[in-house]
Structure formats: C-alpha cells, structure tokens
C-alpha cells in the first residue's frame, strides 16, 4: 500500500506536442504507405511532398513548444540516449531522400519508407522514455504509436485517392489490415494500462478508444468492405474510400491528442510507509 496525492495531468506538453505525434505519424505513415502501394511518377512525388509536409508541420509544432526556439539545433546534440535527437536525425535524412524522389529518383521510395518507419518508431520511443507519465512509459505504447501512424498514413492516402487515383482492391485491403492491426494493438495497450492508470487518465483514453473503435475502425472497415464487395457505384467509389480514410486518420489523431493532453497524468507522489511518531529516536 502506498500513500500520497492523486496523480494529475501534466502541463508541460500540450496540443503543440501532440501535433508532432499526430502530424509526424500521419506523414511518416503516408510515405510508407505510398511506397507499399506502389505509387509512381507524379502521384509518388505528390504523396512524398504531402508526407514530408505533414512531418514538417509536426516538427514546427515542436518548434512552437520549445521555450528557446532559436536554439532548436541543440536538439541534435544527444543521439546517444535521446529519442528526440534520434527523431530529428531521422527527419534530417528523410527530407533529402524525399526531395530526391520528388526530383526524379523514385527508386529511393523504399528507402524513404524505411526512414519514415524509423521516424515513427523514434516517436513511439520518445513517449516510452517519458518515465514520469504512466500512460506513456507503458511498453505497449511503442506498437500503438507505430500502428496508429501507419493506419493514419494509409487513411490520408485514401483521402488523396480522388486525386492520385491509386486504388483498387489490394490498396483497400492493405488499408483495412492496418486499421484492424491498429485496433488490436489499441485493445492490447488498453488491457495493459487498465489496472495501472489513474482514473481520470483511463477515462479519457476510454472515450478516445471508443471513437477509435467505432468511428476509426468499424465505420471505415464497413465502407471499404462495401467497395470490395462491389456494391458501391463507380462514381462513388473514390469519395467513399476517401471518407473511410478520413475517418481512420481523424480517429487516430484524436487518440493521440487525448493521450498527450488528457491522459498524460503523472504518477503523483507516493510513500510506502507513514512516519512513526511518538517513539524515541
């Protein structure tokens, strides 16, 4: 038994920090999915620009969060132990590779996908290393953040379907698999933290989890299933796929927002013994 004040929501990282995990995850997932879906030519360039843009937006969110933004380059000093530094290094390699693809080196697409996966992995380890926050330091946060990043990226890929036109059954099936994997990883994470998180943190996650399960999983899977079964009229196929993608991406983003800004309870203070008073010492 321990004694101590109840945990409370951390206030050091707010929606700006969440923005890095949301945009960075989406962007990395989009780049990876574009490579896996076999995008080529202008479509690959456009998807690469969109993915890099999202990652850049996420990093800009971090820039806004820092107290001393003019020293931002100091983020690169500690690759030995800091996952934030490693995230920055990965981005520093990913951006030139992405630009090279846009400028006409499509054979680098798989390398970009690997770097994007490394980027989102760094993000997951960043949260895992935050020992002060039980919901983040849980080891299952790593697959959760990676899986949400990939599913959101796949979602954004489908959002762009009316523009890039790369669809078809394999793409939709892969999207469905990623969304399913995400929800299973979420359920595993939820099971692990259910007994350990502070009530307020768990309640916040539960709400976001319901959104993820219904709006971010069941609804998009139903839409994709309709398309795969061929019951959707041709002109509606692309818009419905885009809707499915948007739902999956939005639900994942909401989960991350809640994870950082509402479920980020600290551990509070706890003492395992009360002082024994009134005794000679």
């Amino acid at each position, binding site marked *: 038994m321990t*004694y*101590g*004040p109840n945990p409370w929501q*951390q206030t*050091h*990282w707010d929606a700006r*920090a969440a923005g890095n995990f949301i945009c960075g995850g989406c962007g990395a997932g989009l780049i990876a999915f574009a490579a896996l879906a076999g995008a080529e030519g202008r479509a690959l360039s456009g998807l690469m620009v969109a993915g890099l843009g999202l990652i850049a937006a996420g990093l800009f969110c*971090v820039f806004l*969060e*820092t*107290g*001393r*933004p003019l*020293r*931002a380059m*100091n*983020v*690169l*000093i*500690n690759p030995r*132990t*800091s*996952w*934030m*530094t490693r995230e*920055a290094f990965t981005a520093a390699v990913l951006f030139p590779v992405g630009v090279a693809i846009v400028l006409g080196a499509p054979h680098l697409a798989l390398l970009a996908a690997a770097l994007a996966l490394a980027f989102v992995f760094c993000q997951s380890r*960043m949260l895992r*290393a*935050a*020992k*002060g*926050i039980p919901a*983040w330091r849980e080891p299952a946060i790593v697959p959760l953040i990676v899986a949400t990043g990939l599913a959101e990226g796949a979602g954004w890929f489908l959002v762009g379907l009316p523009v890039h036109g790369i669809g078809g059954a394999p793409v939709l099936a892969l999207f469905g698999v990623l969304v399913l994997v995400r929800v299973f990883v979420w359920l595993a994470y939820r099971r692990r933290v259910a007994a350990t998180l502070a009530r307020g943190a768990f309640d916040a996650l539960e709400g976001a989890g319901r959104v993820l399960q219904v709006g971010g999983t069941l609804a998009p899977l139903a839409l994709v299933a309709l398309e795969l079964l061929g019951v959707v009229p041709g002109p509606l196929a692309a818009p419905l796929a885009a809707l499915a993608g948007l739902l999956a991406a939005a639900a994942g983003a909401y989960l991350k927002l809640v994870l950082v800004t509402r479920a*980020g309870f*600290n*551990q509070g*203070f*706890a*003492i*395992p*013994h*009360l*002082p*024994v*008073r009134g*005794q*000679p*010492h």
Partner: protein
Amino acid sequence: MTRWAMVADLRRCVGCQTCTAACRHANATPPGVQWRRVLDMEFGTYPDVRRAFVPVGCQHCENPPCMDVCPSTATRKRDDGIVTIDYDLCIGCGYCAVACPYQARYKTQKALFAYGGAMQSEAKRHDDARLAVATKCTFCVDRIDAGLEKGLRPGVDPEATPACVNACISQALAFGDLDDPQSNVSQLLARTKHFRMHEELGTGPGFHYVWDSDAPRGTP
C-alpha cells in the same frame, strides 16, 4: 568517490515550509516555482486520521531519466551524483519535465515577480538565462563547490550545505556523502528504516526518507 544525498526524516518534519522559503530566498526562484517543497498529506477518515509532511524536489537520481531524454545534453550528472542543467544549452522542450517521475522540474516562460513589477531585490537577482528553460533543485551546488574549495564539509558546515538543510527548524533534513560510511547521512540511514520514492522505476533517487527507527520499541 562521493555521492551527495539528502535524507528527510519524516518523523521530524512539521511541515513549516521553512526549507521552501529558504530555497526560494537562496535561489531567487519566481512565484510558483518551488525547487524544495513540502507536501502536506492526510490519510484516513475521522477519527483514524494520519498526516505526513513530505519534502520533495529533484531526487538527483543515480539513473536520471531527465538526463537520458534531454536532446541537448543540457541535463547532466556530475561524478558526485548532482544532476545539473546547463541553461545555455537547454532548448526548453519540456521533455525532461515529463520524464521526471518526481515533478521536480519547472519552466517559466516569462519573468514573474511576487507583486507584478520587480522589487529592487528581485530585479537585482533576476536572471534571464533561467527563462523558458528547465530549472530545478541544484542541491545548492554552488555552495557545495565553494565550500569544498575552502576545505569545508557539505552537510556539516552550513556554508557548504544546501540552504533548505540549514534552514530546517527540526533537523528533519540532512545532507552528506553516502559513500562515506562515517558521514551524517550514512550514519542516519544505518540506524533507521527508510525508503526512496518510486523505487520501482529504477531511477535510484539520491533522496531518502526516514520513517521509523531501526531499534526495538522503547530503546532510547
């Protein structure tokens, strides 16, 4: 080797917050920033109620998670166990603050003073370098280093001892070298029951809490 550590005797602490005030005075921290604070904990329901006063702050951990996550190496650990922050390197990302399980770190975005504008004393000691970066208890490292240079013993000689320890009215706080078996803190821990907070996280805090005597009841 030397391992500076602090011991809080919870049996002695009366929650007067003098250590907090002394720290504020010694380190010129702004309103809302308490590198040394004392928690007032109440447990149970009437009539079976217990109360404990628990001094907290940076635990100067053996394995500081704040140091591992710091992207700029602003947070470091000295050979003597004191965890420091280089204000000129820190980017104020707040990562260390969420990595710390002891809520010991602060970030003040803009200059704050007790009554709005800066009083003369506040203006004199205000330091822009500490704005928008992480700050925390330093174990009054400047006093320790200056004292050692003069041949003084931290934890014994007040001039070389953290301000909070000097100020404690009930000698609930003690400071000294854990690697020296004859030091005050080693001796105190040897004859008492004690614990460290959130031990299960593996941070190896340098802050120990005494809660009972090791001697059988009734032994003087």
